[in-house]
């Protein structure tokens, strides 16, 4: 009688709490620490920006339409990610794999456009060491871009695994990649607003 719960636990190698398995909780915790990491970058940016007179107007230095398009790409990638997860839930793994690949492709395009934007800016003579504007712009977009690049690799691996039929038992792996991807997307929406729009 007493041993039943123990044996029950032994037979389930992946324990959960309120239906949350360990990897999912870990990814949420990791994202919480990422929120604090970006907070530690955004707060200095805001504090320096609003204590500096004559902060450059973003629209005069940066190409807002180009980056708005880039933002659109990233939002689209979140949509394909949601569709991929939905397909996996309905056990349509090939469809999920293709949608994941599309997500990674859109992410890679985002990084590409950002690299183009950086190159253009540098050609105009605005580098990371020019003015606090350059300091904060390159730091914020650079750390975010790195996160997207890591996400592209992660999603690509997930896509390959899905195409090989790797998620036929459970699709937790797709969900976890999705959590990270949406987080990175959300951070960009905040950064885009703070750097380019206001």
């Amino acid at each position, binding site marked *: 009688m007493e041993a039943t719960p123990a044996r029950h636990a032994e037979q389930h190698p992946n324990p959960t709490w309120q239906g949350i398995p360990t990897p999912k909780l870990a990814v949420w915790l990791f994202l919480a620490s990422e929120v604090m990491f970006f907070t530690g970058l955004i707060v200095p940016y805001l504090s320096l920006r609003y204590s500096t007179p004559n902060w450059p107007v973003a629209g005069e230095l940066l190409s807002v339409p180009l980056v708005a398009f880039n933002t659109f790409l990233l939002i689209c990638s979140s949509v394909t990610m949601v569709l991929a997860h939905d397909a996996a839930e309905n056990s349509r793994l090939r469809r999920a794999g293709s949608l994941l690949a599309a997500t990674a492709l859109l992410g890679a395009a985002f990084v590409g456009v950002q690299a183009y934007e950086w190159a253009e800016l540098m050609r105009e003579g605005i580098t990371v060491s020019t003015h606090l504007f350059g300091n*904060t712009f390159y730091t914020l977009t650079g750390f975010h871009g790195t996160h997207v690049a890591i996400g592209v690799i992660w999603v690509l691996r997930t896509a390959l695994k899905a195409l090989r039929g790797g998620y036929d038992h459970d699709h937790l792996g797709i969900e976890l990649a999705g959590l990270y991807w949406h987080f990175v997307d959300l951070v960009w929406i905040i950064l885009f607003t703070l750097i380019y729009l206001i």
Partner: protein
Amino acid sequence: MAVAQPVDHMPLAHEKELPFIRRYIFSTDHKVIGRQFLFSSLFFFFFGGLIAMLIRTQLAWPWREVPVLGRILYGASGNILSPEQYPALVTMHGTIMIFFFIIPVLSGAFGNFLIPLMIGARDMAFPRLNMLSYWVMVPAFFIMLAGFWVEGGTAAAGWTSYAPLSALPEMLPGSGTGQNLWILSLILVGSASIMGAINYITTIVIMRAPGMHMFRLPMTVWSLLITAILVLMGTPVLTSALLLLLFDRTIGTSFFLPAGGGNPILWQHLFWFYSHPAVYIMILPAMGIASDVISCFARKPLFGYKPMVFSIIGIAGLGFIVWGHHMFISGMNPVLGITFMTSTMMVALPSAVKTFNWLATLWGGQIQLTAPMLNALAFVSTFVIGGLSGLFAAATPVDIFLHDTYWIVGHIHYVLFGGSLFGVFAAVQYWYPKMFGRMMSDRWGRIHFILTFVCFNLVFFPMFILGAYGMPRRIADYSGYTYLAPLQGINQFMTLAAYLLALAQVILLVNFFVSLARGKKAAENPWQANTLEWSTSSPPPRENFHALPVVYRGAYEYSSPAVAEDWLPQDRALEQAERQPAVEPAPAD
């Protein structure tokens, strides 16, 4: 029906066949990783202590030739400490003791070893991540140590590395490569901490044994859980700040450099936003440990278990809104100063709840003055002095006088040495039998305790007096100031006491290693304690428990009327009595 768990149910039983390197070096076993953290952090404890002796020597006899060590360390300057080396020593002492000793020994060593055992799990939720967390610490050790050999020596801007001192390579000899290494090393240590925190939280939330409700967890586990949340939410901000500092130093940004429009105060805000919670990262686990040890050796239930839990949560929550009290003289808006002063003083409330609960636990208990208990009692008493001295520093008008004096040095040492370190001593001696399967000598433990406790107070209490005199911290030679010159006698006294304090630690070291080989074999439950780690063999098998335990009650059922013994393990099933608890005494034995 029977509690039958044959070998094939132990998922990790085949571990014994693993080669040496997988079992003892790149092991995923939380117990091995915990011991790895213990050994390496104890090494750093002695290393950091040695640096402290050099600092004390300089303060007692400024610019005197140092006999043996001087030839090794200061050979270039004629066996005498050079003015540039003193801040480097202070920086390294602080950095090593905080980031390489106290945090790793509490969260790394005891967090790793105890969490799965105390919650009744086979291992951490992510054993490989756990291993990675240790092996990210190791390069950090070496990167920090490499600073001693690079040009200009180690970082010298203090463990707080205030900008612009730390942000401009030309500020100090150690501000060159040494400072870069310091930054890289801390980023690695921080990453290791975050990995550990994710693992600990996930493990505690999800992997608890059947029946182990959150409010049946021992205080040690609660404190480690809350500590992990502080690490998770605080450390990334330090990582951002360190990266920005590194950029200022290497790629020409000026976040913290006024010349480029940046703001050095910004570094202080970011640094203390992490480092004030870090103070609680260093003390909360010791509080949990002291709670468990005191309850066990008072043979009484912990007084006010839930208030103890909520006060830890309260301290942690307040910990995030008090960082400005480190910056009262940075020119902050006085209104903001009052806010930080108020929030800081509120920390005294949950701290007082804890203190009075410890006292109430002791009240009327059958106190056994073993070495772990003595250290836990020392924890409580010195924590009170450390905490109360903190209240002085929290009051803005008083702090304006006390800031950057030896008062602050005394305060931090009463909290971190008197608090955390006595907690560590208690933990080492309390869990040693479980970690190594042998008992440490309690007699030598008590001798070590008495010497340490006396010398500790002789070294650090005078610091409050020095601080009240206005002696600044981080000063290599105070004898040139007429108002400080008379303090040399008291400084020499403190230094002699510090030497004794260091020698007393040799007793601990010898006791620790001799007991490894010669100690009495430990029984399963030598302290007759209730928590789950004592219901498995000493040391536990690879998979921790022969059968996963089922938990029936909280961790503090000492002297329960329901059983004849004065302890009642969490996993012991009672026939009837347990279901109608303690209202009427169960038919004894």
